[in-house]
């Protein structure tokens, strides 16, 4: 049987890459001596362990029947949620909390399978109100930050 590349083999390869980069980068920080561990000592050690584990995971993955990762249907939630969060982060300082929450909830709702306008509006109103409450009373931030 031909070795099949599946989820486990891919994750093993990913661990190998991260482990290897940790070793290469860590070496530049200075390994030091065992008595006085340099800043690179621990990262290089961890990178080596990760590399070994990655090889083991990959080899195991090649020997067992495994399927490829299933990304179908993930693009829409992924893009919408990232847009929601990144937009929230960019807006909250300039546009104020209310605008940021509005954007966040609208984008997040678009990530779901169906966009129901009335439900979304209710979500925006409820979450906006609760968010303001937490922001001002729970976290003690100034009400001036709510609006642009």
């Amino acid at each position, binding site marked *: 049987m031909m070795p099949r590349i599946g989820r486990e083999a891919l994750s093993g390869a990913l661990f190998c890459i*991260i482990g290897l980069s940790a070793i290469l980068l860590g070496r530049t920080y200075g390994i030091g001596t065992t008595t006085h561990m340099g*800043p690179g000592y621990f990262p290089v050690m*961890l990178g080596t362990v990760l590399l070994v584990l990655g090889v083991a995971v990959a080899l195991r993955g090649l020997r067992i029947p495994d399927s490829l990762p299933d990304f179908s249907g*993930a693009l829409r939630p992924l893009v919408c949620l990232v847009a929601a969060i990144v937009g929230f*982060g960019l807006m909250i300082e300039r546009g104020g909390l209310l605008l940021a929450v509005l954007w966040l909830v609208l984008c997040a709702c678009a990530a779901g399978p169906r966009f129901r306008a009335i439900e979304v509006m209710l979500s925006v109103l409820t*979450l906006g109100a609760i968010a303001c409450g937490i922001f001002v009373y729970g*976290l003690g931030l100034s009400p001036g930050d709510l609006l642009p």
Partner: protein
Amino acid sequence: MHILGSIIAGFHVALTPANLLYCVIGATLGTVVGILPGLGPLTTIAMLLPITFKMPAVSALIMLSGIYYGAHHAASTTAIMLNMPGEPTSVVICFDGHPMARQGRAGPALCIAALSSFFAGCVAVLIIALFSPVLADIALDFSAPEYTSMMVLALVSSATLSDGPALTSLAMVVLGLLLGTVGTDINTNVQRFTFGLPNLYDGLDFVVVAVGLFAVAEIVWRLQHHHAQAQPLDKVRGLLPRWEDIAATWKPILRGTALGGALGILPGTGPLISSFASYGLERSLARDPTRFGNGAIEGVAGPEAANNAAALTHFIPMLTLGIPAGAANALMLGALIIQGITPGPSVVTDHADLFWGVVASMWIGNAMLLVLNLPLVGVWIRLLRMPYRLLYPAIIAFSCIGVYSLANSAWDVILAAGFGVAGYILTALGCRPAPLILGLVMGPLLEENLRRSLLISRGDPTILLTHPISAAFLVLTVVILAAQFARGVAAQPRR
């Protein structure tokens, strides 16, 4: 009588109006997230961590632990009514709890589950109160080599003994440890893995990573694997169990409590494994094992007791040794560190009000859960109808506000989105993110103890083997790894 005095002092802390309120909030929230299939205690704790930083440490821990044990307490309701675990740890309850519900005996199943949780919870808190000071006393003699080996043991056992493939979980722990090194090295002021970004100089905030991995990635995963929501069975008639039920369950409850209480102390085992072990034990002890799977009440009582006992004794290593036994404990430990409390054996004595206050609050919380669960069961069942599409925007909104409030920094929010994407890809590749959080929280502690050990021994790494306790920890680590490896070889399909 020293312990009795401490417990009374603990109740003084736990019964102040503010702490009592946090206990109620924690237990209620825990019940809600335990019942809602789309929201778990890990996500909730990650989401609420930033708010707890504004509270006193003891109140924060009272609330967070309430969420944790409350969720374990309530998750059986979902398992019984929906045949779907509210939390992964209650999957065993589905086996016999749901058949009972379909036979019209949902009421007794829920009641026995609540009673066995309550009993197991009370006993487990007693175990914490009696056992922790002893363990802390022993651990006070530990020095850097012992801590180093103990952390290695805890990380290895929690990675390999929990669910999922052991090798992958180990790799995720190491990845977490590596992420823990990001930022300025405290000893040399060298920037590690910061790529010139000033925002990374202080390292990765574990709250940001936890929100990304447990809130964002989890939501993407659930939206991708969107299924029609199961409809709960409607009516619960007659909560009270029959006399035969009580006669049949008191022994399984005792056995489950003992099993869970013991297994919970070890990192990695804990609620899930304890409940499976208890189910297996009850089935092998039963006169007629074929009843199991068809609504045997012992199959609900034993595992439910084991699950809850283990969820509570899981706190022992965290409170006495500063070693988290699972991802949720790791988050709480991180919260304590941010509150300025150095985790370790000195917490029991130096922060006695914190330790005993939390222990006392667990008793109060357990009693409260019994009151919450049984009479309000109708409310909770209606909660099962809450559609996920209304739930997840709220999770995202509160997570983002929380992350932003950490340092009023937009960068943290964007970083959380990044970890959400990374977490989703890892999950799709079959790597569970929970071990990563353990590594991330433990990373700096492990590095510091390793550094100190090697400084003591002037660079001789065998110090980890010449200190007897440290050597014992390492031998145990090797035994666990060897057992896992042997099991893996045995399970490997022959070609």
